[in-house]
């Protein structure tokens, strides 16, 4: 079970927003390796970020599978070049995926540079999150009764 508390969420969101701004990118998404969106920033109104997260995680998983077949630990980065939008995908701390969408307003070099810095910042937050998860367990499930769960699935 992975838990994201308000405080860490805000810290992560800040990093993601800063990256989006500093890299001059269109949008930035932070996704967990199972395909859940953690945070996002930029021009995402017209993007289905849920599908994008799931597909990106699938892509990273498949690429990881290829790496293992080739006796590589993992390929840490991927770059897809489109006509209007480019995609930069990188793995942070072996557990989350940082996705940057960008266009001609910036360059791959700048994106790479800013991603490197942001990765370090995200890793710091994740580390503090891991420590905290060990100390404090989530409380939401303590309040949930069998009846609550039954009620979830009562009507079609």
């Amino acid at each position: 079970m992975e838990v994201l508390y308000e405080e860490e969420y805000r810290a992560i969101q800040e990093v993601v927003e800063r990256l989006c701004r500093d890299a001059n990118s269109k949008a930035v998404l932070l996704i967990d390796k199972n395909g859940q969106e953690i945070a996002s920033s930029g021009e995402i109104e017209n993007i289905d970020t849920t599908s994008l997260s799931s597909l990106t995680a699938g892509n990273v998983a498949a690429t990881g599978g290829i790496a293992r077949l080739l006796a590589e630990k993992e390929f840490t980065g991927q770059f897809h070049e489109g006509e209007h939008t480019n995609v930069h995908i990188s793995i942070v701390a072996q557990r989350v995926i940082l996705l940057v969408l960008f266009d001609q307003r910036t360059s791959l070099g700048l994106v790479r540079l800013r991603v490197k810095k942001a990765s370090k910042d995200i890793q710091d937050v994740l580390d503090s999150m891991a420590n905290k998860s060990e100390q404090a367990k989530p409380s939401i499930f303590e309040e949930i009764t069998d009846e609550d769960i039954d009620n979830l699935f009562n009507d079609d």
Partner: protein
Amino acid sequence: MSFINYSSREINCKIVYYGPGLCGKTTNLQYIYQKTSPDARGKMVSLATETERTLFFDFLPLSMGEVHGFKARFHLYTVPGQVFYDASRKLILKGVDGVVFVADSQVERMEANMESLDNLRENLEEQGYDLDQLPYVVQYNKQDLPNAAPMDELSKLLNLTAVPEFSAVATTGDGVFGTLKAVAKLVMMDLRKRK
């Protein structure tokens, strides 16, 4: 792995539909997609071949109401059933919270069912999971076909651990939501147990 976001107040869980090729995993998801109101579901993504065989996975995000102010969201995935896609199946099982095994009830598919079930168990073990410890249900699909084996026979072969089981005809939707609700409920119960 379930993901609890206190900021967006969401509980996210991953359910995987497993089973032999052409057993109806994608059809289950398509029916759920068609019958769920658009505000409770996201887009269904299918990575399929030109002949509509699943190549990597299908994906359908679904909201199933709220518990204590937290939205319960389920991400439904199918695996490609064909034997040679085993590497892809392993990837999709990563982080799974609940499993639906969709069996093809046709007598001549019994060996394929058993092979797929063994494969599920092995692939889970490789990822450090034990099927007997996971929220898990079995669905006997295609019960409308004339060559479908009866439920009790299927159960004896494919449900040795006596988990919840469902008769289904995924093309018409019979048993589809029953199966989904049962596994979703087991997932929520399991999360509570692991709190």
